[in-house]
């Protein structure tokens, strides 16, 4: 009897423990977390589409009736359009459907001489890129990889099917935000001094007022590139809608979906933003390495990239109309599994926002991102490297979150070997 009682008590204690453990694991339903994620993606791409359409209207107005004001209005629309788009970059690395498409809209860096006239200091063709100075705007016909190209009419199809990544060179960026940015601002010839590109509005003027030649073709190019951006974003927004492929893929397998979320957060934070986009620019002292180099908007692209990572974790996105998309979050899920890891990762993401916020603050007060990159500019280097360190630290916390959720299998997304696992058997 005595024994039995003890055994029962022990069992009760054990089951109590088990129940406690189960409660700790509870948190929100994993499906609900994935739904929030897909909802944020859908809202982000829809907002990007809305803003791209506004840009399209301003571009059409500029071409119809060129003026300094019209060019300025188009530039302002482009800057606004970047705000929602940069927050979607976090969806890229974890979702092959986004990664495969992304190059059409946000490829960078580019050899802008492919598109239009450039300063003599730009040089010409290079070892890496024979077409670095092709200048499509000035040349209605040319030879590309041995093929005669008729570009008398500049259409979205010509840009996307023939010219983008011409000759298999990634720097031949003929489409997307950065091609449009170049057409609106022109080259930034200020080096590591303050200042963005200074393309005159007369580059779009008619008749004798036209500067730098071929204004009509330049306008055609700008229009074709903007139309293409709108249709590409429209497509992606649909992929995240109720029956869209991107959403279905994420929802199909809970663990894979969570892995996609965390992979996107970690790969963007570390290899892409901290590495390629921020550290490399400082280490090269090269303003050409700025993500938004023509418009001097790089500090914003860094800021909104980082915010996108935080959105995914916190399960919250503020739309361009001020409304909020939110729901059960990855943070809730991690907190249920290990409150300490959640607290650490949340704090790390907030810390990064403060660091990139400092860069943004300094840049908006006149200490532009180009100046921060200058050789020997210790204040600029410290601002950028502190943000880099913070991004690296948050990546470590993301790895810990992967561990406590038990959704390992992370990393190497986007690598050639993983995309093509059968390569070895070919």
């Amino acid at each position: 009897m005595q024994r039995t009682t003890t055994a029962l008590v022990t069992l009760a204690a054990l089951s109590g423990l088990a129940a406690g453990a189960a409660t700790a694991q509870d948190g929100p339903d994993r499906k609900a977390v994935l739904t929030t994620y897909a909802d944020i993606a859908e809202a982000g791409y829809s907002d990007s589409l809305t803003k791209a359409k506004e840009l399209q209207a301003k571009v059409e107005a500029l071409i119809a009736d060129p003026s300094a004001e019209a060019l300025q209005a188009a530039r302002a629309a482009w800057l606004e359009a970047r705000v929602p788009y940069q927050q979607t970059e976090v969806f890229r690395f974890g979702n092959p459907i986004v990664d495969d498409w992304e190059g059409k809209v946000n490829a960078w860096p580019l050899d802008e001489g492919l598109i239009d006239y450039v300063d003599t200091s730009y040089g010409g063709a290079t070892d890496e890129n024979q077409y670095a100075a092709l200048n499509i705007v000035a040349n209605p016909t040319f030879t590309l990889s041995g093929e005669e190209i008729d570009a008398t009419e500049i259409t979205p199809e010509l840009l996307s099917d023939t010219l983008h990544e011409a000759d298999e060179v990634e720097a031949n960026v003929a489409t997307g935000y950065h091609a449009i940015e170049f057409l609106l601002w022109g080259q930034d010839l200020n080096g590591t001094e303050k200042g963005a590109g200074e393309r005159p509005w007369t580059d779009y003027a008619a008749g004798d007022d036209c500067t730098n030649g071929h204004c009509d073709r330049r306008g055609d190019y700008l229009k074709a590139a903007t139309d293409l951006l709108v249709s590409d974003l429209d497509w992606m927004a649909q992929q995240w809608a109720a029956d869209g492929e991107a959403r279905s893929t994420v929802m199909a397998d809970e663990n894979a979906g969570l892995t996609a979320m965390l992979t996107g957060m970690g790969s963007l934070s570390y290899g892409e933003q901290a590495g390629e986009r921020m550290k490399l620019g400082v280490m090269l002292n090269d303003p050409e390495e700025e993500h938004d180099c023509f418009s001097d908007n790089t500090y914003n692209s860094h800021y909104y990239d980082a915010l996108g990572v935080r959105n995914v974790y916190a399960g919250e996105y503020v739309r361009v109309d001020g409304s909020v998309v939110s729901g059960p979050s990855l943070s809730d899920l991690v907190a249920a599994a290990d409150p300490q890891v959640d607290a650490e990762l949340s704090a790390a993401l907030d810390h990064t926002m403060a660091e990139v916020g400092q860069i943004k603050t300094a840049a908006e007060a006149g200490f532009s991102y180009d100046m921060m990159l200058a050789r020997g500019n210790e204040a600029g280097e410290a601002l950028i490297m502190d943000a880099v360190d913070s991004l690296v630290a948050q990546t470590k916390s993301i790895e810990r979150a992967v561990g406590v959720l038990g959704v390992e299998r992370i990393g190497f997304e986007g690598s050639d070997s993983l995309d093509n696992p059968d390569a070895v058997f070919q």
Partner: protein
Amino acid sequence: MKYALALCLSLAAAPASAGVAEVIDDQIRPNLAQFAEATAALESAAEQDCRAEALRPAYQSAFDAWMGVSHLRFGPMEEGGRALAISFWPDKRGMVGATVARLVAEEDPIARTPEEFGEVSVAGRGLFALERLFYDEALSGYGEDSYSCALARAVTYDLARMARELRAEWEDYAPLMLKAGEAGNDTYLSDKEARQALYTALLSGLEFTADQRLGRPLGTFERPRPERAEARRSGRSLRNVILSLEALEDMAEALADEPIPVTEEAFDTVLAEARDLDDPVFAGMEAPTGRLKVEILQQLTQAVRRAVEGEIGLQLGVTAGFNATDGD
């Protein structure tokens, strides 16, 4: 219950796995020492005679030593972008050539103060800047009293300094890995995290060789890119592949707690193929048969990666973390 709890605690505080200590003691420390010594030797050789021809042998040794540590892309190596400053490659925009040419053409006075040379763009520093000075015919003919001579001394000084600092900082960093999970260690909260960092470095090293060292010159079948081979000017493209694979094999063996026959065989296969290849800078890439051989090398390197994942990953209970090169 008490016993069970105590058991949990003792498991949590288990000492670092043999693998982590072994990698650090048998590979990382000696290889970093070797790299520091080889770059110091290059620096003093440049003090004696700064001309290209005189420095090529010491340069080759320093590059050899780099291949023993180039995969350690975490901790001290990432501090202040050190890996980029030592070895800026791939150089997709041709920055090294342009930067070195500009330094020489402008006779940038920074070369006269080697201790400040770390300010210069990474495209003008490290092994690849030296490669231009020593092997690019347009630049390598300089004499003792030239600007390029001072530049060679500044770059070798800066390189030796970085190697020395790297070695010293690893002495502070190694205890963090060896004492993972101990109170106050925020870098590695558990032994598993330390194992994962090394495991990630191992897989990323293999990935880098497959995708970059071999993948870049391979280009596509229609458009091979032999001019994109790593360190082709100094004739090291294939040698770098071999030396890196050798270092990674040593690391795999040290990291594993149990025999790893599948991984070892995969390494042996790719290394045998690589040593047999008579194409030091992948110049034979233009011909289909030449290209095929390099493609096979790439596939065999990917096969090593899968063997490591299946064998060592499973043994250690870890998967790869994020790595510094996973952007695009």
